Each structure stands twice: as C-alpha cells, then as structure tokens.
C-alpha cells in the first residue's frame, strides 16, 4: 500500500471513511512509521486550527446606539453619567423594596393574628403596633397622602405607606390586602376593606365622622385605646423606625458612587451641552468636564467639532451612522501618509467593544481630479482614487486614500480589511 496522503488522513480524522477503509488504513498505519508521523501531524494541525477558529467569536451585544447628532457631545457625556444614575436608582429601589417588604410583613403578621397582634409578637423590637402618641412628629413622607384617612383603617394606611414607599407618588386609593387572612378573619378583613374603600372615597368631613367607628373596630385588637386622628400606622411607624438606617445606607451608597475626582455630581437634570459639578466645600459652582478624555497622542489636542470644521475649510468627513467620541488635531508629521507641513483633524470613534477607530483627514486643496499633482507630491504610493490597506504594527489596519473633493483621509482601527473598507464606504 502506498503512503497515505494528507487528504486521506484528514478523511480518517474527520470520520468520513467507511469501516473497511478505516481497517485498511489502520493496518497500514501500524506498519508505516512515516504515515503514522503524518497522522500525528495532521491531528495536531486539525486540533490547532479548530482552536484558532473558535477564538473568533461574535463580539458582545453592541452597546445602545449613540445619539445620531454629532453635536451631541453633552448627550454623550450624560450617557456616561447614566451609569451613576443607574446605581443611584438601584439604591433607591433597594430602599423602597426593603420598606415595602417590611410593611407587607407587618400586615401579614397582623392578618395571621386576626388583627390582634400585640407588641411583643413582632420579631423586630423597633416595631410598635400600638398607636403612637408621638406620631405627630413623624416625617410628612410617612404620614401618607391622606391626612384624614390615616386613622380610619390600618390596612388603608399600611397599603398607602407601602405603596407610597414603593411608588414614591400620591396614593389614590387602597387595595385589598394580598395576604389571605385565616378563616373567620377574612370576612372581617373584607368588611374593613370595604369600609376603608368607601371612607377613602368619601369627603374629608365624612371620613372624620366615620373615624370613631373604625377606631372602635380597631380597638378590638389594640387595647381599645382611642387612636388620634393623626396617628401613624404600625407599618408606617416601622418604616419610620428603619428609615434612618436605610436612608443612611442609601446615603453612603450614593456617596460611594457619586464622587468623581474631587467633584460630586449633582443629580438634578443637567443643562444641555454642559456638565455641572459642585465642589464638596460648597464654595460655589464650578463648571467643568466630567471626564477629561485623553488625546490619542501626546502631540494631539482635543478640539470642538466647529473648530475642526473651520480647520478643514468648512467640510468634515464623518462615518455615516456613527457618532464621534471626540475630535482632535495634531501635526501631520507624525502620521504616515499625511502632509507633514499641515495639521490634520482626527475624528475618534469607538466601536461596540470600545476600541478606537480613527478617521484622520486633511484638506489638501482643490479637487484632485483637477490637480493631480497635488496628490503626487504626497508620495508615489498614494494617487487619487487609490486605496491602500496596510497592516500596521499591533495588527491594526489603516486605509489611506484621497477623495475627489481634495481630502486626504486615513481610517485606522483594529478591524479586518473588510470591516475597514466597509466603514470607509460609509464616510460622507
């Protein structure tokens, strides 16, 4: 039997051969060290190539599209602020959810005890289910949005307090309790809920008249003590008790995320086009950028889009559908292919993984169709209409060309040649 060729060995490794062929080849391999060595080599190539190809995986889902307006620099910076706002939101939600859970827990305990829970029944020592005489001192936020309805029914107040804490808005009406009361207590609870709903919908005066009735009903479970009209519900009291602790947690959390450098970012809406920061010392307002983006090279400096347009005599080339991260200018001497005697404009984009894509451009004069010599003085390798895709150091790629409007352009990035050319096609 002749030696096995690479194709046959790959068929063997890929399991493409029939049983008879496999037996024949196996027998030959046992007797032929040369083919055995080739098989080992083919197996290594196969494993290595599979491993290499598997490294090219689709990137993570792209970030949300950036604002389409190139002038939306402030909007872009605000989107960076968004992550801090999101954290602040998360802290607020944790606070609200914790209080809501706490309130519902109180209600659940009361329902299980047929509204006869005593002080010692609740696991938390900070919760006082008895009417609080000092409740008038409770913060307004805890005293619900129904000043006259607070003493009507605990379930009303519980729901109001929990809803208010969860939603942060005014509470219009109470909802039936979601926790099922034990047999016998259900009817009472439903009757109380009906009373509460009708009272909540009634005018304030009527609700005040109805309050003693509700107090009497509640008195069965609360030592028959009259409850002041402005008393705070147990869950609200519980909320008040835990509020300072949770507020402190939220405050420390917000402090841990808000400071950026020596500034603290204000949470109110920002004025369009600028970021406002406040010095902790309170010595007055100071306006300044939230993040100081760094130029791509030491000899480059960041400029505004307007400045770049002026530098390019009124026209700038941008990639259609992408929003620049920043615009820079710097000497052409440091960039391969550029006119060393003038400064170029560099528009910096970020691709979804955060890698920079650079669009360098110089206005070199009138349309190159009319002035072909304009291009020739930039080097023999760059003629009007030519495209040069070259691999730069570090596996990045660069496309240089001159367009018909008298622009020298260079697009570079760590992208494949196809991707780079695809992006170049979108330059307008």
């Amino acid at each position, binding site marked *: 039997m002749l030696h096995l060729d690479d194709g046959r060995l790959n068929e063997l490794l890929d399991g*493409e051969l029939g049983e008879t062929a496999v037996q024949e080849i196996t027998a030959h391999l046992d007797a032929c060290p040369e083919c055995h060595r080739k098989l080992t080599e083919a197996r290594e*190539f196969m494993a290595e190539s599979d491993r290499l*190809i598997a490294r090219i995986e689709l990137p993570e889902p*792209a970030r949300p599209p950036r604002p389409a307006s190139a002038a939306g620099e402030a909007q872009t910076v605000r989107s960076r602020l968004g992550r801090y706002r999101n954290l602040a939101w998360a802290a607020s939600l944790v606070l609200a959810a914790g209080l809501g859970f706490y309130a519902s827990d109180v209600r659940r305990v009361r329902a299980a005890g047929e509204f006869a829970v005593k002080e010692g029944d609740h696991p938390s020592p900070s919760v006082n289910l008895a009417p609080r005489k000092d409740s008038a001192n409770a913060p307004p936020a805890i005293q619900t949005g129904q000043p006259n309805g607070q003493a009507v029914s605990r379930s009303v107040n519980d729901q109001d307090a929990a809803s208010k804490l969860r939603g942060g808005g005014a509470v219009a009406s109470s909802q039936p309790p979601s926790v099922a009361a034990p047999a016998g207590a259900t009817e009472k609870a439903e009757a109380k809920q009906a009373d509460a709903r009708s009272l909540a919908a009634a005018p304030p005066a009527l609700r005040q008249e109805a309050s003693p009735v509700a107090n009497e009903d509640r008195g069965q479970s609360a030592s028959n003590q009259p409850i002041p009209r402005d008393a705070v519900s147990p869950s609200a009291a519980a909320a008040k008790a835990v509020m300072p602790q949770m507020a402190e947690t939220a405050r420390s959390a917000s402090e841990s995320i808000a400071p950026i450098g020596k500034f603290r970012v204000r949470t109110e809406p920002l004025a369009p086009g600028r970021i406002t920061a406040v010095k902790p010392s309170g010595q007055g307002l100071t306006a300044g950028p939230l993040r100081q983006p760094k130029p791509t*090279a030491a000899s480059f400096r960041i400029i505004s889009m307007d400045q770049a347009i002026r530098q390019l005599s009124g026209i700038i080339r941008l990639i259609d559908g992408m929003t620049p991260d920043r615009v820079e200018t710097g000497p052409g001497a440091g960039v391969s292919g550029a006119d060393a005697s003038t400064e170029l404009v560099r528009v910096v984009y970020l691709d979804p993984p955060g*890698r920079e894509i650079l669009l360098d451009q110089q206005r070199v004069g009138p349309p190159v169709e009319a002035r072909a010599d304009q291009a020739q003085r930039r080097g023999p390798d760059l003629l009007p*209409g030519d495209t040069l895709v070259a691999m730069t*150091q570090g596996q990045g790629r660069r496309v240089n060309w001159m367009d018909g409007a008298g622009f020298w352009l260079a697009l570079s990035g*760590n992208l494949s040649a196809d991707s780079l050319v695809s992006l170049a096609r979108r330059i307008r």
Partner: protein
Amino acid sequence: MSEFIAQLFNQYHASLVRMLYRRTGDPDRAEDLAQEVFARALAAPPDNPRPWLFAVALNLVRDDGRRAVRQGRRLQLLKGETESAAPAPDDQFEKDEGTAAVRAALNELNPRDREALLLKAEGFDYDEIAETLGLAKGSIGTTLARARKRLVEVYRAQEKDRHAAS
C-alpha cells in the same frame, strides 16, 4: 411556509451569522447578510436547506467584495508595512490581538480553503461542504488538510514575528 422558514431560522441563524462574522469580520454585516439569506429562502424555499443557506451567504459575501472593487477602490493588502512614524494610538489596537492574529492568518488562505474550513467549523460533513462550495467530495479532505496546515503555519509565523518585534 413561514413556519418552515421560522424553523430554518431557529436552526441555522446563529451558525450562519457566526460563519459570516468569521468570514467578514463585521458583526453588523454578518447579521445583514444572514437576514438577506433568509429573505431569499422565504422567496424560494430550498430542498436541502443547510448547504443552500450557506452557499447563498458565501455568494453574497463574494458579491459584496466585487461590488467594492467596482466602486473604484482598488484594494491592496500589504503585509508587514512598518510605520516608523505611526502615532501612539495604534498601540491601543493591541487589545484583542489574539483574535486579530487568527483573522489575519485566516485571510492568508485562498477563499475556497478558508470557506471549507469555516464550514467544517460549523459542523458540516464532506458531502455538505462539497455541495455548498460546488466541489467534488473527494477533494474536500485535501482542501481541509491544506487549509488547516496553512492556517496554523501562518499563525505560528505571525506569532514568531510578533514576539521577535516585542
């Protein structure tokens, strides 16, 4: 009909997009091309869907490349050009250099070898590769052997150069 296409989509879309991404290097373009492939499948449902879908996808990629040439941009791929005066930002592109190196090595293969390799990576057997690429089944083993060897050798050479330069 739409159910059939939906089934095809669920079964092959992810694989098709991955193959197209490996072939083009552009996730958006890969997604667009995959959508186009399924739109064509809706218009003319294939009998043997998998080779058909991938063959149409690879044809679209080639057409796309030819269109770029027609648009007047002559493409010249020059390896290893050194840019002595290259600006510092190029250094940032060292990120994810492993993937870029593999892609660069893959681009060194001839198109047929590269496509055979990418189809094999998607689990195609020799019959399906032959049907997708319009080749004889008997030549697939040799094609894959050549492609695998070339990919690994080019990649190793690039790595060697990179380490020598750094």
